[in-house]
């Protein structure tokens, strides 16, 4: 439900001409948004484990880089992890 409500917020912000980046943990509810990063972590710790500063920085850098893209972009770390 949480990702679904944030999806509604992202839709509305985009329609209000405010570009969004969403850093979630589930892909399906966010499908179709222009800039999405799916974390490899479970919900409640989207940017990594507590005090894992280097991971927090890596994910934040990746999230900020999505503001630079020129076409809809999805980075899905869960999909990458599941790839053979």
């Amino acid at each position, binding site marked *: 439900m949480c990702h679904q409500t944030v999806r509604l917020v992202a839709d509305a912000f985009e329609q209000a001409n405010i570009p969004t980046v969403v850093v979630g*943990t589930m892909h399906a509810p966010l499908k179709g948004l222009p800039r999405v990063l799916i974390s490899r972590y479970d919900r409640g710790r989207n940017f990594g484990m507590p005090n894992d500063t280097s991971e927090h920085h890596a994910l934040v850098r990746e999230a900020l880089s999505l503001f630079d893209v020129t076409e809809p972009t999805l980075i899905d770390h869960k999909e990458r992890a599941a790839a053979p």
Partner: protein
Amino acid sequence: MSLEHNPLRTAWAAWLPGALTQLEAESYKEALVGFPRPDHPPLPFLQAPSPGERRIALITSSGAYDTQTQAPFVARSAVGDISHRVFPTSLPDERLGFAHGHYDDEHVLADREVLVPRRTLAAEGAILTENVISTMGYAIDFPSFLEATIPQLILQAKNDGANCALLVPV
């Protein structure tokens, strides 16, 4: 004054009575069968401002609130809570509480940066607006969330000077 007809609210109001007992029992899978969801609009691609021009609104749905000045979200409500909180981006960690349920808050209580990465964003050069906007992601009343809450979030972000937003759902 007449109320504008809202098909989503009509469908939601028809769905709710049959789902309420299951929501109260936290049987969400069963309860959400037939839950009326709005269509998502096609979104033209917006180019974000250049890095130096970006003013980012940080939006969390983690149920974050200022424990010294704000009431917690109503985490125990069967239909969730559509209200929102606004607190300074500079709020000290020890004042940042979480009222949400539905997720394990052990990690975020140990380190707020795992969900509300204010310091990490700043250290990476992001310019955040002066306030964080917070909701509780468990908000079953979609019609009211759409009609009443989201316009307030947009207004807050714009008043804070945001020209882009980073959203972190739980």
